[in-house]
């Protein structure tokens, strides 16, 4: 029997809306007999439970009541009716950096902030080295935080939150700030916390993050709980609610340049460097903790078109990503994919073998498959984080699929600067474009 850590019963929140502040005085003076306000119900009868060590995703469009719910749970707002119970200490990322005083140094602020959250100075002192290491603000730690860049500020603020050990953690979309490496560190940290039995309530509009991080999810709409269940199903409901359909076959067919993704590789022609790299294997820390591990990426390499190992590429030139995947159980529907994120953490491009219409043969436990993807890096110069992954289809839901394995903490690939007179395009990435002209119109 799992222990319930958060239980919410019939929670409702009403906001009174007054057209004129004096109407409130009228109500006071008539002892509430005269009603002069309108009502807005931000939540109505919301109820759910979360077990210890569980990660619950909370999704919904803006204004659905997510923030109100979280604020009530973190006791920053009082509910109008209903009740909730949180066992143990709750820390909310909503509070990120709120206690920070611009004139105080980073170090002083860590202590001040911790005090606000109810942790003692000794508690923080014990964890200080880890906090400082995580924040990576260097010598700035003894400078007033008003001199910090916004990135440093957020890292510092988050580092404290990441190193306290609450029983329940509320994570709002604050993670959208900070560069992608920092974000990955954060996600890593959450996984660690969960392993220790910390319960997480995770609010995000990033449905991919929800499905990968959460066991279950609830969907709020207009202040009501309209769906709850396993994360993938609820995410599906969310898209349905937003009027989007993800039925298979309605998405546009993926254009595959013939030969770009070889369906069958000629093993005799694998460059020696790449073969060595693939056989070298991967450290265990390279694998994300989430994923079913039905298949595992056992070798990974990046090369240029000519098969030389490379992490740097000229713009518009291609990189070739090599995967050596091993099945741990019988897998009928393997999907091998890759994600590219830019420095701001924006998903620039993601593609999988399924998008390309490639169907791998069914794999049995212990069987291996080698796959390469050649990607034309038609993106802005800069650093890109890549997340290679394997997955399969979730029964009944083509979106978003079941994650098997994902490599993280890889170094970024670097797209070098443009050399021509004009940049080949503006924006995140080049979309295939044809331009024609005539002067006789």
């Amino acid at each position, binding site marked *: 029997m799992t222990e319930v850590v958060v239980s919410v019963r019939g929670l409702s929140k009403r906001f*009174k809306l007054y057209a004129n*502040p*004096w109407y409130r005085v009228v109500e006071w003076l008539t002892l509430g007999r005269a009603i002069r306000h309108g009502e807005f119900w931000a939540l109505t009868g919301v109820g759910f439970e979360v077990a210890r060590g569980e990660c619950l995703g909370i999704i919904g469009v803006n204004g659905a009541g997510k923030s109100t719910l979280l604020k009530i749970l973190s006791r*920053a707002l*009082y509910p109008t009716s209903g009740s909730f119970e949180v066992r143990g200490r709750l820390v909310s990322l909503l509070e990120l950096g*709120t206690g920070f*005083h611009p*004139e*105080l140094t980073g170090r002083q602020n860590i202590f001040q902030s911790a005090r*606000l959250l109810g942790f003692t100075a000794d508690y923080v002192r014990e964890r200080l080295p880890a906090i400082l290491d995580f924040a990576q603000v260097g010598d700035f730690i003894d400078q007033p935080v008003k001199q910090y860049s916004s990135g440093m500020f957020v890292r510092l603020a988050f580092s404290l939150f990441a190193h306290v050990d609450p029983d329940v953690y509320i994570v709002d979309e604050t993670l959208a700030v900070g560069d992608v490496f920092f974000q990955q560190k954060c996600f890593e940290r959450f996984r660690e916390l969960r392993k220790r039995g910390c319960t997480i309530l995770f609010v995000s509009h990033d449905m991919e993050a929800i499905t990968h991080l959460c066991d279950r999810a609830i969907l709020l709409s207009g202040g009501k709980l309209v769906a709850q269940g396993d994360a993938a199903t609820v995410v599906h409901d969310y898209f349905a609610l937003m009027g989007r359909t993800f039925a298979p076959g309605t998405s546009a067919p993926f254009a595959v340049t013939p030969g770009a993704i070889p369906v069958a590789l000629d093993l005799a022609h694998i460059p020696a460097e790449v073969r060595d790299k693939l056989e070298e294997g991967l450290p265990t820390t390279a694998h994300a903790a989430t994923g079913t591990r039905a298949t595992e990426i056992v070798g990974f390499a990046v090369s240029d078109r000519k098969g030389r190992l490379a992490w740097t590429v000229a713009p518009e030139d291609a990189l070739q990503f090599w995967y050596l995947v091993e099945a741990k159980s019988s897998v009928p529907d393997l999907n091998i994919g890759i994600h590219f994120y830019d420095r701001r953490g924006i998903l620039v491009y993601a593609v999988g073998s399924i998008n390309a219409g490639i169907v791998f043969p069914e794999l049995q436990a212990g069987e291996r498959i080698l796959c390469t993807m050649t990607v034309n890096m038609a993106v802005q110069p800069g650093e890109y984080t890549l997340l290679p992954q394997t997955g399969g289809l979730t029964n009944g839901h083509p979106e978003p699929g079941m994650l098997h394995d994902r490599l993280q903490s890889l170094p970024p690939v670097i797209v070098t600067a443009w050399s021509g007179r004009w940049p080949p395009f503006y924006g995140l990435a080049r979309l295939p474009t044809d331009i024609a002209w005539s002067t006789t119109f």
Partner: protein
Amino acid sequence: MIVNLWRYRSFILRNAASDIRYRYAGSAAGILWHVINPLAQILIYTLVFSQLMEMRLPGSVAVGAFALYLCAGILPWTAFSDCVLRGANAFIENASYLKKLPIPEQVFVAQNAVTATISLAVSMALLFVVSLGIGGVVSPAWLGVPPVLLLFQGFGFGLGMIFSTLNVFLRDIGQALVIILQLWMWVTPIVYVEQILPAGLRALAPYNPAYPFIDALHRMVSMGAWPAAWEWPMMLAWATVTPVIGYLILRRLRPEIRDAI
């Protein structure tokens, strides 16, 4: 209320300390301004009222005596008025905390009261030194000054509690208070001696809630006498009843405060 204030004591004290430390941040003299300001205030009042306007205490010709009388009232009044006005704005100014953290509301009113009390302690200590300097009466009655100041600040905290909640819903209150406190200062014998009031008004003076505090301070600082017997229970009453009323109002309206700020 008290339990929560005690639980957050280190937060209150720390914030009050940083309020004091950073109020003059960026200026060259920095924290010294906490001494310069009240000192200048003491000197200006002495100059204007004792020298230029030649006001004297009844039955005394000493120049310093009136200055002491004046400062004994005006310095505590400034702190008291700070307590009320800044207390009334405490929730609005700290909206960013209240909206995100489960900190009890009264903590912010208390923080302002502590800050004002610390500055008051500094300026009253200066006054003590000055009174030694100008050869004024320094009697054992000075021992009664700290408790009276604390009670006066307690009263200020109480009013701050009452108005902080109401001000969230009716922001006009904060503005009106500025005027009301000025009026209140002038009807209280602070910059003048009560003997100059017409007899009718003079009989009413003790009904002014600030009167026992100011009168007690006058007696102790400028006359070397102890407060009148009736003034102690009066002061104690104001310093306990107003925080309780403030707390009752807060408790009644608490759920809506964070919605409205």
